[in-house]
């Protein structure tokens, strides 16, 4: 079996400037902080980040934002990180952030579609709102739906609670959120995990993400704190 265990620095070494990266978590709960710290250290620039929210300053995706590494942010909610608005409205061109807001359920389903080989999804969410601008409306049996296209990424940084050496992963509680979806929708998936165990130690009934999706495993993830 190929060794997937490495340091956070080794795991993020292959992330290039301009890459598209999915990052798990909901208000930084279920966000792999050690991988984000390593990405801040590596200082990859002009990133497109796909995540539920912008975290808070100094936490989760907020660290990448503070370091000016994000060019485009695709998220459902950014209101708890005032730095997003500052960077969207700045006159300094190299600090300027493009923020694309997507309804949370649509974001989840577009990522799922990206990982599941679908050409898009039809959702009633956003019909008649500015979210519908520029999108195809398809009527099915009398109801209007928006065609929302799949989302894919070069990398996904996800956070596990327990991961075996093959990459099979369990997420505790509400740390699950976007993590298992993103694990399917990126070319290279890095798991930052709290505990690494031997293959076979996790009951197959409890595995939430199969190791087939996982390229790299990094231990040392800490429990989440507000």
């Amino acid at each position, binding site marked *: 079996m190929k060794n997937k265990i490495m340091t956070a620095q080794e795991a993020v070494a292959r992330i290039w400037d301009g890459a598209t990266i999915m990052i798990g978590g*909901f*208000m930084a*709960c279920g966000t792999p902080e050690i991988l984000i710290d390593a990405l801040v250290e590596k200082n990859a620039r002009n990133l497109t980040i796909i995540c*539920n*929210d912008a975290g808070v300053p100094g936490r989760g995706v907020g660290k990448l934002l503070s370091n000016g590494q994000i060019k485009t942010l695709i*998220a*459902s*909610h*950014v*209101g*708890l990180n005032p730095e997003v*608005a500052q960077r*969207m409205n700045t006159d300094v061109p190299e600090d300027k952030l493009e*923020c694309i*807001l997507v*309804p*949370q*359920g*649509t*974001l*989840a*389903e577009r*990522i*799922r579609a990206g990982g599941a080989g679908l050409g898009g999804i039809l*959702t*009633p*969410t*956003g*019909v*008649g*709102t*500015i*979210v519908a601008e520029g999108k195809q409306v398809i009527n099915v049996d009398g109801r209007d739906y928006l065609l929302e296209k799949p989302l894919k990424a070069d990398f996904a940084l996800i956070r596990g*609670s327990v991961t075996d050496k093959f990459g099979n992963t369990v997420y*505790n*509680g*509400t*740390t*699950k*959120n*976007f*993590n*298992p*979806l993103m694990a399917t929708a990126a070319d290279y998936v890095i798991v930052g995990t709290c505990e690494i165990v031997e293959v076979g130690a996790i009951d197959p009934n409890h595995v*939430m993400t199969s190791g087939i999706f996982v390229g790299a495993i990094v231990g040392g993830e800490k*429990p*989440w*704190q*507000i």
Partner: protein
Amino acid sequence: MADMRDPKEIIAARVAKELKDGDVVNLGIGLPTMVANFLPEGVNIILQSENGIMGMGPAAEKGKEDVDIINAGAQYVTVNPGAMFFDSATSFGIIRGGHVDATILGALEVDSHGNLANWIVPGKMVPGMGGAMDLVVGARKVIIAMQHTQKGAPKILKECRLPYTAIGVVDMIITEMGVMEVTKDGIVLTEIHPDYTVEQVQAATEAELIISPDLKPMV
């Protein structure tokens, strides 16, 4: 004698009476969260939290938090026996699929067609819609729980002026002044708080209210 309760408590207590035993309910952040404190005796509801919980319990006690369990407002919470955690696609499948009986949330504006605006004030506040667009489109009943005006300015309008969260989704509006139902003919005032007259409620409302022939006191 005037009602001395905080207007938010008046609203939350009245909203709680709309819920039936066994309902699956999603509560928004702020005032809607208070509804859980006012459920009538014998009414147990199942709280859904869109970040991935069915069967959410009360806030966690200080010192007893499970750091892996938060609600959609990023507060540590507990879960009840029989709860389930799930990913965001499953969570919004539950919401969009019509498996949530009621969602209770606030609004910036609601209009006489049941249109809702609660996620953006262009040029001022761009927090993002989060799960609100999915919730109001998917939940079986949408109850808006809010103070009747914003510092005296009406929030219940003929037509929303802010960008929509969704169109034609609001079923009911509950404020400190009364209870209103959105019908195809417009907004019907069905209950009025005893501290106010119909004229006062209409004066605080831009949309023209239809007064129910069966108008009751809001208690």
